[in-house]
Structures are given as C-alpha cells and as structure tokens.
C-alpha cells in the first residue's frame, strides 16, 4: 500500500526541489492564493528588507502606493534623502507587529503615547516613533508635531484606501515605555532621547503575542478597509545585536522562528492573507549563503532579485510588456519655470537700472 506521500506534488520532496536544482531555480512558492493586479494600490511597511520590495515594485511598473511623496520643491534625490518614498508613508522602519498595531491606533486616534518628543545630541527634535525620519532632526517641537499630525493623517488615508498591504516582519525584540507600552523602533538613547531604565524596558515578544498582534492589526484594517489583502513576509536579515543575554545567533533564530510561526498561523486562518517566502529564499541552504553580503546580514541584490522574480511570477500576472509608460508631465515644472523667470528678470532689472543713467 502506497503512503500518502506518493500522491503529493514534487515540491514536497526536498531532494527534488531544494537539493538538486541549480540554486537560482529553486522556487518555494506554491499555491499563492490571489494575484496583485497592476492597478492595485500596493502599500509596503516593515523592517529594512521591505525597502527592497518597495523599490522593485516601483521599478516593475506596479502601482506602488505612496501617500507621502515629498513636496516637489525637492528633486528625487532630496526626497530620498528625507525618506520620502522609502515606504508608502514616512513612517520609517516598523520592526514588530506591536509597532504596526500602534501605528494604526495612533493614526486613528485611539492611542496617543505619552512620549511625544526626544532631543538628539545636537539639540534637534526627534520623533520617538520615527527617530531617523528627518535626517538632521526637526528644527522645533512645533515642526515635529505639525509633521507628525500630517503624517498620521496620511497613514490613515493609506490604510483606508490601499488594495494590498505588504508587511515584512523583522523582529521580536523591542524597547517600550513602561508607562504605556509604546514601542520604540530603536532603543531610547541610540537615535535621540536618553536611556532611562526607570522609563524604558526591553521586551522580547513571544510567538503567541506576535500572532495576537497581527490578528489585532488585521481586525483593525478590516474595519476601515474590508477588501484589503495582506501579504506577509519575514525579513531574512539577522539581528544586528540582541538585548538578551545569549548568543545573537540563538536570539535571531528565535525571533525569525516566532515571526515565521505567526505568519503561518495567520495565513491559515484568513483568506485575505498570503505568506510570501522571502525568508526561505534568502536563507535556504540551497544557495549556500550566496544571497548574503559580506557581513552575513544584509541580503545582496542577487538574492533580492530572486525574491522579486518569484514574487512577480506567482503573486502577479506580470507581463513586462504591460509596464505602463511614464505619465507625460502635464504641467511644466513650477520650480524650473520660476528659476528661469527670476534669473531673467534679475538680469533685465539690473540692465535697465544701469542704462537709466546713460
């Protein structure tokens, strides 16, 4: 009598689909439940690995949804410098599901952290929940508060109107306020603020808490955007440091495992959630570490390309021929026009004045 294994597809056999194929041919994506359409507004958030997804979506002609794109006073380089467009809104890295839940709650006014502002070593003002978002810090508290108010309104709009939300889970380790549990993306004192053990504590989320937080976020998202679909990935980037008193490799394995378990639990219970195996593609033994840079932490471009190739193949009906042509600029660039006019009028003014005495 044959065992049940005999009737399973070949992708269930390690030797056939992991050990034998050339590393670039390994494809762990099976049965992706739905497709991202070119017109879908795709928003991204998460840890640093999520930036790669954002970049590739944009380059591949998809409707990478950006609600905070930076004022056109700045050119593309300036916008990038000020972290516009890195993610769909200017929230910076979001490492844990708890942080994601709190972002949602802050955007919809149901959670206001007690900690409102930090200062950095230069006396500039830093948003505790986006400490690196303004490259040199905000110039005043008023500016920080106005920017944050504007930002959260944009985040609210993003959640309400997106079609697909791609979230990359990065960490289980976090630093939080003892007063109200507000999660900070970096330890206070690292990028602004001052570490105070009376006010802050380290916390390493349990797998069950990660699941609960993701469930909470999906409930909240469903309330404001019932048709939203979510793609979860786990960042393959190891912890740069652990705050647990143990080897960082051990901590990394715990974190990634907990996050991966949470994704599996969530995906099994919700039809609008799909898991995409970026983690497996980058870290799988089949590539023998090829997809990590020299630091053995950051994914290199070859690895990211493998991830995105499979993403486009399985999660979309991507057809390179359908990449939309760039929209024609409908209005002349205001800044360029004004620069030309100001320069011209300045020259004419001076010449006119200089001629008046001759």
């Amino acid at each position: 009598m044959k065992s049940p294994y005999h009737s399973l597809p070949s992708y269930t056999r390690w030797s056939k689909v992991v050990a034998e194929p050339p590393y670039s041919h390994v494809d762990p994506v099976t049965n992706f439940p739905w497709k991202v359409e070119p017109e879908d507004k795709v928003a991204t958030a998460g840890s640093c690995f999520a930036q790669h997804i954002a970049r590739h979506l944009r380059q591949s002609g998809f409707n990478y949804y950006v609600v905070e794109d930076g004022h056109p006073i700045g050119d593309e380089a300036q916008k990038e410098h000020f972290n516009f467009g890195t993610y769909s809104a200017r929230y910076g890295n979001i490492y844990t599901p708890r942080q994601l839940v709190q972002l949602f709650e802050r955007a919809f006014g149901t959670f206001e952290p007690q900690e409102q502002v930090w200062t950095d070593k230069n006396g500039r003002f830093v948003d505790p929940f986006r400490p690196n978002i303004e490259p040199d810090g905000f110039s005043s508290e008023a500016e920080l508060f106005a920017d944050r108010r504007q930002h959260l309104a944009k985040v609210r709009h993003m959640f309400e109107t997106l079609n697909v939300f791609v979230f990359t889970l990065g960490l289980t380790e976090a630093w939080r306020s003892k007063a109200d549990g507000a999660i900070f993306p970096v330890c206070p004192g690292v990028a602004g603020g001052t570490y105070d053990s009376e006010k802050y504590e380290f916390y390493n989320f349990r797998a069950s808490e990660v699941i609960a937080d993701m469930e909470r976020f999906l409930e909240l998202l469903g309330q404001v955007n019932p048709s939203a679909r979510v793609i979860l990935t786990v960042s393959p980037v190891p912890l740069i440091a652990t705050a647990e008193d143990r080897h960082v490799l051990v901590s990394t394995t715990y974190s990634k495992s907990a996050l991966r378990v949470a994704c599996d639990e969530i995906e099994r219970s919700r039809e609008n959630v799909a898991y995409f195996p970026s983690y497996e593609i980058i870290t799988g033994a089949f590539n023998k570490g090829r997809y990590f840079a020299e630091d053995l932490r950051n994914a290199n471009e070859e690895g990211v390309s493998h991830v995105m190739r499979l993403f486009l193949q399985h999660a979309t009906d991507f057809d390179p021929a359908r990449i939309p042509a760039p929209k024609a600029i409908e209005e002349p660039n205001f800044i360029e026009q004004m620069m030309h006019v100001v320069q011209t009028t300045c020259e004419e003014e001076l010449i006119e004045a200089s001629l008046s005495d001759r």
Partner: protein
Amino acid sequence: MPGKAAIILGNSHLSSVILHLQDRPAEVYGSDDSIQYYVFDTVKHGAGFPFSIDSGGGRYILNPAVLEMIKAKVPADREILYISMYGGNAHNVLTLKEHPRPFDFVVPWRQDLPIDNNRELVSFAYIHRFLKKLTEAYELNMTTLQNAARELGGHAFHFQSPPPVRDNAFILHHLEDWFKSDQPVEVAAPLLRYKMWLAHSKIIADYCSGIGMEFLETPQSAKDRDGYLLEEHGRDSTHAGPSFGKILLNQFEQRLGLRYDGWAWL
C-alpha cells in the same frame, strides 16, 4: 589720507543703489572721512560676467579683471572697502507665486509666525536644502570677494537683500512681464513670502559669518513693524528702488562715520 573707496559688486539688487546714486550730489570732496562708490557696470561687462574664476585645480578666485578695473578707476591712495550685493532673490523662486501644491513651513527662530494647517507642512531643513542649492552660485562670489579683500588688507561687507513688500496688490501691480502667463497670477501669501525671505537671509547671514564677511541687515527704517519692506521702497515685485538704496548707503556711511564723495562705474 584721502578717504575710502567702496567697490560694490553684485547682481540685480545693485539697481537700488545705482538708481539712488544717479541723482545724489556729493557732500564732501576728498576729505579723510569721505567715501566714493565704484559700482560694477553690468551694461559694460555683461550680466554673465564671471565674478569668480577657476585659477586651477578648482581653486576659485575673484576675477582678476575686477582688480584691474579697480586699479584703473580708484585713486591709489584711497583705502578700499568691498561690498557684496550678490544674489538675493533665490527665495522668490519658491514663493513669489503661489506654488501649485501649497505649502507652509516653520521658521525655527520665529516661532511667533503661525503656520497654516490647511497647507502641506514642509520641514525647514527641506526648504533650506533647496534654497542652499540656489545660493551656492553667489556664495562662491562672496567667498572669492572676501578672500581678495583679506589678501589686499581690505574689509568686505554683504548687504542683505530687501524683504518683500507686504501687499499682494503691490506685487501684482508691479509684476514683471516674465512672471505673467495666460492664467491669472496668484501671488503667494505675504507671510509665506516673508518666511522664505527670512530663510534665505539666514542662509546668507550664516554664510557670511562662516567666511568672515560682515553681514549688514536691512535698516529698520526701511521696514514696517512686522519686517516687510515699506511699499514706498519697492520698485518691482522682487526689487527695491532708489529710496531703499539711499537708506542702505546712509546706514553704511553712518556706521563707518563717512560722508559721500561721489560715485563712478567700475
């Protein structure tokens, strides 16, 4: 010692000084406390005259032609001062006309100036970075002038460009043809224009401080209580007129204890 000679180099804001000097009679002649002005002649030398040139290896210097002009025109026994009126209109690129995507920003040292919460908030650093790109061209000229002054044992000053006139109707009425288009022109709100001028002035003042050039602010008598240029001193939408030039030079002369002894083109 027969007085001083001030060499005035610059761009369009020279016009206020030129228009003032045209009809100004000398107050003294050749006394120790006299000052003569030698103003860069844009008609003769061209609006594109390079005030700074690369002497090799990317080291920029004041165009030697300027020193030749000075040598040819200025009496050798006068102590020479240098006045920069370079640039000064970069802020108008952003806020003379209302931007199609309305914005506002906080001026860090003027927290009393409100922001409009109905507009897109742009950080001051974002504004600063853009303005700085525009000011770099004339900052170079300020540097080469300062370096030349230092080498020659002279003192260099920079005159702050005039603040904007408050009234949008004045701006519209005096709008140069180049700014006009088929669509009605919407002038940016006075406060936004003023804030942008503040931001620009700070960049230039800080730059002057960095290179050791003395920054001379617009005299208070030329401004209203909130710092806008009094309308009577406006010439067009972006420049001041001869009465402003008069106030500038009077302040300069009073500061140095000097009396006016005539002017010439450089």
